[in-house]
Structures are given as structure tokens and as C-alpha cells.
């Protein structure tokens, strides 16, 4: 079942004409001509669509919070600042079917009563920025944007705005600051953007994929959308798969597909690259806990693990993870978990905006401690030290970047503690960057066990 990528392979779908010939912009016609804005909101609520940026908050509910009483101008801002390591799905949508997002922005803006909306795209996607700029011009020329759309009296201006290299701008209040021409420092909530967002006006910020699902929902009803998927994980989800697999890329799956089928069937990832053993999986972008091989296809109770919000988080942080943004990173037995965790910590240290001390300082400490363990200068007590630092960051910052930096470290220690011990005890064996390529950890694991007598 394809909703977002249904027409992805139609030649020329990037252009307005072909997109329109394939049923494009029908949802705008339907919404504006035959539905009230509130009826559109009700359909999105009924669909059960959950925010596809990573948090999974129900989109319709988020929409219902927008302040319509104050009489201030309202804005819809699309979050296209895709920067979570492992995630490259929004780029695919915007690059190949730019009009789908624009159609979603128009229909959604109508539902929210916005007359000025923006797409905030990360600055590195500059060629995609230009694709969107062109597509927006086409939509204006065809009368889908501007004054008095379809003779309804409804006006909408839509523009694309580019960032300049800051992961933090994917956090919605930092994104708003950045759209105002400032540093991307997250704001303290409340007030929430739904009350006071862009230029202090009521604002909704939604991910590219969430907004791109709205046209289908409006065309086919929320009830039909809710029939797809499993339980509270309704609809389809784009998964961007990378790492040691045969077929990396972007896939649209029906939520509820088993992790086993997704990983191993030829229709999807086709199994492990070079047929090496699977070691670990990060199922939802770098911020979510890493899972060891024994908790990937089955949960701790032995039940099948499915690609859904609920199933991937079964077992909590003890034995589960999260669907997150759908950034599916697969690691084989040559991967060094310590090195990979250091790599993630360096990322979060680099991307911390610096407002909150626990995050600004803590991410740097974790990077330093992990680096010394990885390069053979670690101490026995470093593992406890790391645990202590991550625990003190989590929950103690304005925005979730602190949590996102803490969780991967906690999960790595929880599931791969022996590997950290090995690094500390056998510094001479890890001198080379690719130490587990020549000799995977499985082959030397016994050395750690022997020492523990």
C-alpha cells in the first residue's frame, strides 16, 4: 500500500503538469469547495496520523490546539530541517514529488486558517530548496496559491526558507527562532507555538511527511487512512535505511510490517551486506536507543517485533527502542559500538546550541570520555562516569536534544558493556580505527569474561 510514493516513479512527476494529470491538487479542490476548515481538521484527527518527524504526537490534536480566538494571523510551518542521523526520507519526497508537499501545505493551511505559510528546509539541501522554489512558482501560476484561491475568497502565500547548518533547528521552537533570522536557540515552553510561535503568532509546525499525508486523507477520508496500519500506528511510514544492508534507500511501509520481513525480504532491505552477521540496530534515528541483535526481531518476551510506534518501544528503554523518525541504521559485526557511540556524542556536542549547561558541557564530556576509551586511554571508572553524565543531562534541558544525546550512550552501555570493558582492558588491541574489521568483537569477547574471575 503506497500513499506518499504512489506516483514516485511516474516520469516527470516533479513537474506541475504531470503531477496534476495524476490527480494532484484534488485535495485542495475538495477541501476548499466542499469542506469547512474544521471538517478537514476532523478528518485528520480521525485518521490517527501521528507526527512523522520523530515524536509521534497526533497531528490532528496538534492542529486543534491552534489559537483561533485571539484573531492574530496564524502560520503553518513545515519542518524540512531533516538532520537526524540516519534520516533522509523528507529529502526524497521533496526532491522527487515536490508538489505533494505543496498540495499538503495548501490543504493544511486552509484547515488551520493560515494565510502565510513556510517550508523551512535545511541549508545543505540547497538543490532541493531550488526545486521547491520552482514548484511553488508553478503552483502560483496555476492559481493554487495567492489571492482568492479557486474563487473561494481564501488567500494563501507559501514560501520556502533555508537554514544554514544546525541540527537544533529541527526542534520546533528553535526552527521558529531561525525563521525569524536568529540563532537557533529553543524557547522555553509554555507558551507553545500554537499560542505564540512565529512573530508571536499562533503557529503549527509539522514534518514534511505528516503534511504530505494530508492530501490522501482528505481525498479518501480519515476513516480509510485509519484502516491502514496496526492499532494506534495508523497509515504508512517512510523508512530511510542505511548502514550494512544490501539495499539502502527510502521505503514506504504499512505500519505493522514485521522487522524481520523489512530487514530480510528482497522487496525491502534484502538482508545484510556481504552476508555478515547482524550486530545492532538503531531503528529510528541516532537519538533512539540502539538494540542488540537478540532484541531486534523479537522483544524481550519473545513476541515478534513490528515496525510500529508501540512494538519498537516494547520493553521500554530496558529492552526496547523507538520508531522515531524512521532512520533505520543497521550495523554488522565489524562495527565498534564504542566508536559509534563516540561518533554520536561528537555529533550532539557539535550540535548543542549551548543554552543549557547540562547539555552544553555534558555532551562535550561524554565525547571526551568516549574518545579516550576508544583510543586506548580509558579507565575502569570511565564507564560509570559516562553513565553518571548521561543521567544528569536527561530531563534537565529546555529541549529534547539533551535527552537525544543521553539515550544512545545509556543504551550502548546497557547492551554492550563488555565492549567498553574490552577497550579499557586491552588498549593495545584497539589501536587501529578498524579494529573490529579484522577481528570482530565476538572473537575476542572471551578475553573480557576471563578477566572477571
Amino acid at each position, binding site marked *: 500500500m503506497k500513499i506518499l510514493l504512489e506516483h514516485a516513479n511516474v516520469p516527470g512527476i516533479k513537474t506541475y503538469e504531470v503531477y496534476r494529470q495524476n490527480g494532484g491538487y484534488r485535495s485542495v479542490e475538495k477541501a476548499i469547495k466542499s469542506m469547512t476548515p474544521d471538517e478537514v481538521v476532523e478528518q485528520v484527527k480521525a485518521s490517527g496520523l501521528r507526527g512523522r518527524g520523530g515524536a509521534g504526537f497526533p497531528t490532528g490534536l496538534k492542529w486543534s490546539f491552534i489559537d483561533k480566538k485571539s484573531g492574530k494571523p496564524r502560520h503553518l510551518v513545515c519542518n524540512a530541517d*531533516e*538532520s*537526524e*542521523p*540516519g*534520516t*533522509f526520507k523528507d*529529502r526524497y519526497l521533496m526532491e522527487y514529488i515536490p508538489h505533494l508537499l505543496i498540495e499538503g501545505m495548501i490543504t493544511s493551511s486552509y484547515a488551520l486558517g493560515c494565510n*502565510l505559510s513556510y517550508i523551512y528546509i*535545511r*541549508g*545543505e*539541501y*540547497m*538543490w532541493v530548496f*531550488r526545486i521547491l522554489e520552482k514548484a511553488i512558482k508553478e503552483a502560483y501560476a496555476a492559481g493554487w496559491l495567492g489571492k482568492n484561491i479557486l474563487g473561494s475568497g481564501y488567500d494563501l502565500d507559501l*514560501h520556502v*526558507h*533555508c*537554514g*544554514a*547548518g*544546525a*541540527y537544533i533547528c529541527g526542534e520546533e521552537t528553535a526552527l521558529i527562532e*531561525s*525563521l*525569524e*533570522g*536568529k*540563532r*537557533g536557540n529553543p524557547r522555553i515552553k509554555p507558551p507553545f507555538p500554537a499560542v505564540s510561535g512565529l*512573530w508571536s503568532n499562533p503557529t503549527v509546525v509539522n514534518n514534511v511527511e505528516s503534511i504530505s499525508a494530508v492530501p490522501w486523507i482528505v481525498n479518501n477520508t480519515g476513516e480509510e487512512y485509519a484502516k491502514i496500519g496496526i492499532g494506534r500506528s495508523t497509515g504508512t511510514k517512510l523508512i*530511510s*535505511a*542505511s*548502514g*550494512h544492508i544490501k539495499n*539502502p*534507500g*527510502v521505503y514506504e511501509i504499512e505500519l505493522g510490517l514485521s522487522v524481520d520481513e523489512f530487514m530480510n525480504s528482497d522487496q525491502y532491505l534484502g538482508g545484510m551486506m556481504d552476508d555478515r552477521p547482524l550486530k545492532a540496530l*538503531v531503528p529510528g534515528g*541516532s537519538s533512539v536507543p540502539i538494540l542488540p541483535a537478540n532484541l531486534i526481531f523479537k522483544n524481550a518476551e519473545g513476541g515478534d517485533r513490528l515496525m510500529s510506534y508501540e512494538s519498537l518501544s516494547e520493553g521500554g528503554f530496558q529492552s526496547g527502542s523507538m520508531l522515531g523518525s524512521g*532512520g533505520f*541504521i543497521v*550495523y554488522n559485526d565489524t*562495527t565498534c559500538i564504542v*566508536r*559509534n557511540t563516540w*561518533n*554520536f556524542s*561528537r*555529533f550532539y556536542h*557539535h*550540535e548543542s*546550541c549551548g543554552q543549557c549547561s547540562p547539555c552544553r558541557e555534558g555532551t562535550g564530556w561524554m565525547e571526551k570520555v568516549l574518545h579516550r576509551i576508544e583510543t586506548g586511554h580509558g579507565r575502569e571508572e570511565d564507564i560509570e562516569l559516562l553513565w553518571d553524565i548521561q543521567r544528569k543531562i536527561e530531563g534537565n534541558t529546555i529541549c529534547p536534544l539533551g535527552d537525544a544525546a543521553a539515550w544512545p550512550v545509556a543504551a550502548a552501555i546497557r547492551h554492550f558493556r563488555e565492549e567498553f570493558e574490552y577497550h579499557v582492558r586491552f588498549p593495545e588491541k584497539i589501536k587501529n*580505527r*578498524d579494529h573490529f574489521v579484522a577481528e570482530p568483537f565476538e572473537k575476542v569477547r572471551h578475553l573480557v569474561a576471563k578477566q572477571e574471575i
Partner: protein
Amino acid sequence: MEISNAKQVINIDAQLMERINELLSHYPADKKKSALLPVLHEVQDAHDNWLSIELQDKVAEILEIKPIEVYEVVSFYTMYNQKPIGKYMFEFCRTSCCAIRGAENLMDYTCEKLGIKEGETTPDGMFTVVGVECLGACGYAPMMQLGDYYKENLTKEKVDQIIEDCRNGKVNLH
């Protein structure tokens, strides 16, 4: 990134000004500051890919904001360069998904070939190599950004070819 005192020839020509005005038209008339990030990109692209203090002052003047409001933004976002850099800046993604597919070794190879260390520029001013964080091309690793475009699924051979193409002026940056 350190700040440079190098001099820069400032040239905001009619074409660039037209583009700046187009960008300004995307925001309410009293919210010119909102155009700052996109305007800085355009101005930097037209000035050898870096922003001197003088150039930042000029941007402040155009947007009718204080110079400090521009400085604090330029120093926050990684895509703005505060010192002269090579004509061709190879920005290798070094985050997890690229790292496990050989990005670090490939960046070392590139540096060695060009005779520089990561973060440095070749003496002729042609090439700069830097390691950057996740660029959102994880499934096409290893990769680098070059100007406005991505070069993906890289190998040593492909890097050799890109360097060759740069030297022959065959690479489009914008």
C-alpha cells in the same frame, strides 16, 4: 571557526540586489530580519564562499538590523564561513552511517592526495577538506557536499575524478 581579518572585495551588484529583494518579499515588510539566513547564503555565494566582517556589516545595512544581529547568526550556523576557504570545499559527512561505510578512510585518502590535513586549504587556494556532521544522505554513504550539490556513493576512484574535474573547471558549484 576562527574569524579572519583578510580583506574581501565587496560587490553587491544589481543582479544580487534583485535576488535579495525577491527573498525579502517572502516576509512581512516589518520582518526583514527573517530573510537573514537566505540572504546570507546568496551574499556568501557571490563572494567566494565567505563572509568578512565588512560584508556582514553590509548585510546588516540592507536588512536594516544591527551588525551584531548578523554576527551572532553567522557564528552560530556552520554553513557560513568566516574566513577565506578553497574554491572547492569538500565537506565529507563523518557521522555514523557514513563512518561505518568508510567515510573516515576516504577523507584521509583525499587529504593525503591533496597534501593537506582535515580543515586545511591547499596553498593554491583550490581545495579545502572538512569533516562535517550528518548531511542526510545516509543511504548513499560515503558522501560529500560540494557547493550546492551532493556527491554520493563515493569511492577513491570517484574522488580522483572529482578532483580532476575541479582542476579542469568542470564542476558546477551553484
